[in-house]
């Protein structure tokens, strides 16, 4: 078997197999199981690298499941693609990289973080299933298949949120996440049904080529955008996010950030690839920009009044999703050339930066909870004396998330600010002021947790174990490197993603053009 040819199938099959083998391997002991899960993730990442190399050198990869020749998308007697087809372009690869990176460090962090918890076999099974769901959403070119994978990701994520079954808050958050995900997925399924009813097709490229701007198309578009925006935590549909992010174990939150972004990827795919060619997206772009500002403002201001450390970071994550959507909405409004292309570049670059920055903050918050068993900021203080490394990592995370130069967050935000300025200067000013507000609020969080006199109740705490520190150190290093070499990152992985989204004809042509 040629690994390179079948890499689109293997990238799903390996973690899926790993998920179901984990409980069995777990019988051999904790260390063996942890090593097994890490090996599975390393293998999946290698397949991801092979896929990326293939995509960057040869262009869009198509893989037809069940076909005699995987690249054969339409049998000679049939004019439309009938099987499940993975269609992997620069944007898919970009998102897959984020999912793989976050999943790997989530597992590495978890090897210490959940060491003493019951049910850790099931935890790793669910974490690998979550990865399967995310990768499937990002690589598939089939709408119904996208729905299936979103369900896999949602169910595993909600089970992971409920991992700490002794905490009522976690269970409540999990139920809410499950309900919201199910409602979103049902609306998504309804929209897919409407499109299927019209065009007899589930393939994204086929639908994009067939869209004729009918009344039904518009209804499907609205349902797709509404449901995927809710799954992405865009205000005012963000309320599940502080619950889920705030109450899940921090290693789980770290992975769920990638799942949320996979939903946002779906929204971007719908707006640019499926509807971008046939439909005038100006009105939708206006709504997305408005929702982006609501997310930024509500997220930033609500962070201030939280007493729970994780909930505060969760509200900041809402604001960060707003910045991404602002870039996407501006690009939809201005078109994918000139300032629109810069906006799209900024929005996509910020997806990666948001995953790293907010992820690092959640990991640092998890370390604090691990060491102190406390998540209320009123009961924390002076931790910098006892947890020096965690303090440094949290500081890097907060500077990056607030868009302070020379961190990665600044590089992507400046692209968004400049392009938004071309759309409307007032919008750019509000975006910049909100980022400054975010910095001020993060300073307050940093002070109340790490600085000030030492809390007498926390005098015996120690720094967290090495795997947790290594995970945070690696993420911090990537943040700093992305900040210092932004042009390298943009040229190597962001520009191919932007090119993939702006070149819809190539996406459609690669499927409908046959072999």
């Amino acid at each position: 078997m040629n690994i390179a040819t079948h890499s689109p199938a293997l990238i799903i099959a390996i973690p899926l197999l790993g998920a179901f083998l984990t409980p069995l391997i777990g019988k051999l002991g904790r260390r063996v199981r942890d090593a097994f899960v890490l090996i599975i993730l390393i293998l999946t990442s290698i397949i991801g690298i092979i896929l990326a190399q293939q995509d960057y050198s040869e262009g869009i990869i198509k893989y037809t499941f069940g076909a005699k020749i995987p690249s054969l998308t339409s049998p000679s007697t049939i004019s439309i693609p009938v099987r499940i087809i993975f269609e992997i372009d620069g944007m898919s690869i970009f998102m897959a990289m984020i999912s793989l990176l976050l999943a790997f460090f989530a597992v590495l962090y978890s090897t210490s973080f959940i060491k003493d918890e019951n049910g850790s076999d099931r935890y790793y099974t669910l974490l690998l299933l979550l990865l399967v769901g995310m990768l499937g959403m990002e690589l598939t070119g089939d709408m119904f298949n996208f729905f299936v994978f979103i369900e896999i990701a949602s169910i595993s994520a909600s089970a992971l949120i409920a991992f700490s079954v002794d905490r009522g808050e976690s269970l409540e958050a999990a139920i809410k996440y499950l309900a919201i995900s199910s409602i979103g997925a049902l609306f998504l399924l309804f929209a897919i049904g409407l499109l299927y009813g019209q065009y007899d097709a589930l393939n994204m490229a086929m639908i994009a080529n067939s869209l004729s701007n009918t009344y039904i198309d518009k209804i499907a578009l609205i349902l797709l955008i509404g449901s995927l925006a809710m799954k992405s935590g865009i205000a005012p549909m963000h309320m599940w996010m502080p619950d889920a992010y705030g109450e899940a174990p921090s290693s789980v939150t770290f992975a769920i950030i990638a799942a949320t972004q996979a939903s946002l990827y779906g929204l971007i795919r719908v707006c640019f690839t499926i509807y971008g060619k046939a439909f005038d997206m100006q009105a939708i772009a206006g709504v997305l920009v408005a929702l982006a500002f609501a997310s930024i403002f509500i997220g930033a201001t609500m962070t201030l009044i939280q007493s729970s450390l994780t909930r505060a970071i969760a509200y900041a994550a809402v604001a960060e999703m707003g910045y991404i959507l602002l870039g996407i909405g501006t690009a939809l409004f201005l078109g994918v050339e000139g300032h629109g292309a810069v906006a799209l570049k900024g929005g996509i670059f910020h997806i990666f930066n948001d995953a790293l920055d907010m992820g690092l903050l959640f990991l640092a918050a998890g370390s604090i909870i691990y060491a102190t068993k406390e998540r209320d900021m009123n009961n924390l203080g002076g931790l910098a004396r006892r947890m020096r490394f965690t303090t440094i990592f949290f500081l890097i995370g907060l500077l990056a998330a607030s868009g302070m130069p020379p961190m990665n967050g600044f590089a992507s935000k400046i692209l968004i600010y400049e392009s938004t300025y071309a759309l409307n200067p007032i919008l750019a000013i509000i975006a910049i002021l909100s980022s400054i507000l975010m910095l001020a609020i993060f300073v307050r969080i940093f002070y109340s947790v790490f600085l000030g006199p030492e809390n007498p109740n926390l005098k015996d705490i120690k720094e967290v174990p090495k795997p947790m520190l290594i995970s945070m150190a690696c993420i911090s290093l990537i943040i700093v490197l992305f900040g210092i070499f932004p042009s390298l990152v943009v040229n190597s992985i962001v520009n191919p993603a932007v090119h993939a989204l702006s070149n819809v004809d190539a996406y459609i042509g690669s499927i409908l053009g046959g072999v």
Partner: protein
Amino acid sequence: MDFTLPTGSGFWNPIAWLIAFIVSLLIVYIIRSFGRRDYKKDTEQVKPFLSGNVEEPDKLMLKSENLYWGFKESMKGYYQMMKKLHTGDLRDYVLWFIIVIILLFVVVGVI
């Protein structure tokens, strides 16, 4: 290697920023070195002045909820409204989803 990121109307070069930052640090260090060296270490001189009151160490801790009190007070109306909207009730979460869907229906011109 090209460190400059074109940003549409301008550019961003983190290396130039880092050089400027290091130069600023040097200037700060030089200004600091002009300061008085005759202060007495480990005396009252180096302790923060709290209006002349002597406070117990545990009372010196400023709690998270006390920080930015003025900002929160000035935006009291806004925060009261936001707290009312963030009910934690799942039915309200779904309601907001429906509202956004209706908004999209109106904007796209389906209704």
